[in-house]
């Protein structure tokens, strides 16, 4: 019976994930407007739903999903985008009603009812936004393509690499946090995931401001239930992206963008330190529990590849 419930909740998680990404893209495309701020607030509520569903799945002994269906391609006028969001909410509403009918567990039913209430409110809000935005033209990146304005291909590539990385680590770290039974490391990992969400937002907003699209695609994720394995993967990806950002900095001309990427890069260095501390603690705990030295089959047996210093030229 649990497996059937877990399967339904995983479908709900996919829906929430789809909503988060779609709503954030629509908000970023609207720029600094009151509607964008309200849509971002709705996206944050969907993130809470995503978290609650993941916790429920883990409590049942299952495995949260990081998959999602495709999102809207941003080719329509804002009012049409809002109607699509309202449709997405309606799809969620229908799904939650169906799942509530099919699930006996009272705790899960209460959870889904709580979420359903929010989705009903969201649908109304998107309908209101559709009226408010009626008459506005299609997104800026279409205009950018027409006028030839917009970022250089290389700048868009750099920023989208950042978006891809940040989106990947948000999903990876959230999964690790969900699957970690100990409160302290779970909270630390989730804090870092939230910081990565900030990075994702900053970089995506830069792209949209410059008239380009932020492609919310992720790379390969390490999703296991072994804390030590997860933390090693997290350290590795932080080191890799720190190096990437450092190498890309000299290619950026805009002072504000350099400061932003430096800030993000320095956060990633802090994350590495936190993950390393958590890893040391986890290894010590495991060796105490098993009274044997932890097996480090995944750990590289030799020293790390030495980093290159390279060019320090900043042409700006």
């Amino acid at each position, binding site marked *: 019976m649990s497996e059937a419930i877990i399967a339904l909740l995983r479908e709900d998680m996919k829906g929430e994930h789809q909503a988060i990404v779609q709503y954030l893209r629509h908000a970023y495309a609207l720029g600094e407007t009151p509607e964008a701020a309200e849509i971002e607030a709705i996206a944050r509520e969907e993130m809470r739903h995503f978290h609650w569903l993941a916790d429920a799945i883990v409590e049942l002994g299952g495995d949260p999903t990081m998959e999602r269906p495709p999102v809207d391609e941003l080719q329509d006028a804002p009012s049409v985008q809002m109607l699509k969001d309202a449709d997405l909410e309606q799809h969620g509403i229908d799904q939650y009603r169906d799942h509530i009918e099919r699930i006996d567990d009272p705790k899960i039913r209460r959870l889904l009812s709580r979420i359903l209430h929010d989705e009903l409110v969201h649908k109304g809000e998107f309908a209101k936004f559709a009226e408010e935005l009626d008459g506005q033209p299609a997104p800026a990146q279409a205009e950018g393509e027409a006028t030839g304005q917009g970022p250089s291909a290389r700048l868009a590539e750099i920023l989208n690499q950042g978006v891809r990385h940040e989106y990947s680590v948000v999903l990876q770290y959230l999964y690790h946090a969900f699957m970690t039974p100990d409160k302290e490391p779970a909270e630390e990992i989730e804090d870092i995931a939230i910081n990565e969400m900030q990075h994702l937002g900053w970089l995506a907003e830069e792209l949209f401001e410059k008239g380009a699209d932020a492609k919310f695609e992720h790379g390969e994720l390490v999703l296991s239930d072994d804390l030590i394995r997860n933390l090693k993967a997290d350290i590795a990806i932080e080191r890799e992206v720190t190096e990437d950002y450092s190498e890309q900095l000299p290619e950026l001309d805009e002072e504000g963008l350099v400061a932003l990427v430096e800030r993000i890069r320095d956060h990633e260095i802090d994350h590495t330190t936190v993950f*390393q501390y958590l890893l040391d603690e986890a290894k010590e705990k495991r060796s105490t529990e098993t009274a044997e030295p932890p097996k480090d089959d995944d*750990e*590289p047996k*030799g*020293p*790390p*590849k*030495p*980093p*290159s*210093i*390279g*060019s*320090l*030229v*900043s*042409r*700006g």
Partner: protein
Amino acid sequence: MSDYLLREDAPISPETWAKIDEMVVTVARKNLVGRKVLEIAGPLGWGVGQAPIFGFGLSDDAWVAEAPQYTDLKEIAAEFTLKAQHLAMAEQTPYGLDLGAVAMATLKVTAEEDGIVVDGLKSKAKGPMPLGDWTVMGEPFAAVAQGIARLRKAGIDEPYALILSPLKYAQLASLMQHGRRELAMVESVVKGGVHPYVAMPDDQVLLVGAASWNADIVLGQDIVTAYLGNEGLDHRFRVFETLVLRVKRPECVCVLA
């Protein structure tokens, strides 16, 4: 690559290696001046021992690279020792491993690299052109502008970079009148940056046309740490690199003195 550097033979953990490497990179990035001015060709690898320097000339009304001259890359190095007792202390106490010796060795390598680059540039410089009094508002900008004019006349275009002593930099930075900062005015025409360099004499300033077709630095092995082996219970390491300065157009350097 690690095999040649004997890094796997060092009886220290990958985490300790990462801290050593991070110290080397951090100190090098903070202190290197030449690499902030000139572009890098490479790293090409430790096995590369020579680099070609091409001259250019007109043949049949077309610009063409002439037969290159090959110049040797120089290896510069400094060593440090990690005492076994200190490694044990790092494992058994909360104090961690003090990497000051790593920083000192890296500083020596960076100082030597910059010596090669800056002295090499100076040796090619024409001039000198008048430096003026850098305690008087307007004189630094005038001196730099005249230097740029000479470079432009010789066909050297932007970006230009300035290398000067910390004292000269302090003099430049302290000049302000009616809200105008002399440093900002100089930086507006020297897009390659104004770079303090500790070994620069106080009575000289170097102006360089910093585009890669004028001059660059060829790296064979970028700064890296190798393991040399144990001395008793202690462990010796070498921080080293190989490089050469290529000045392709000597007219790209101007000394103000």
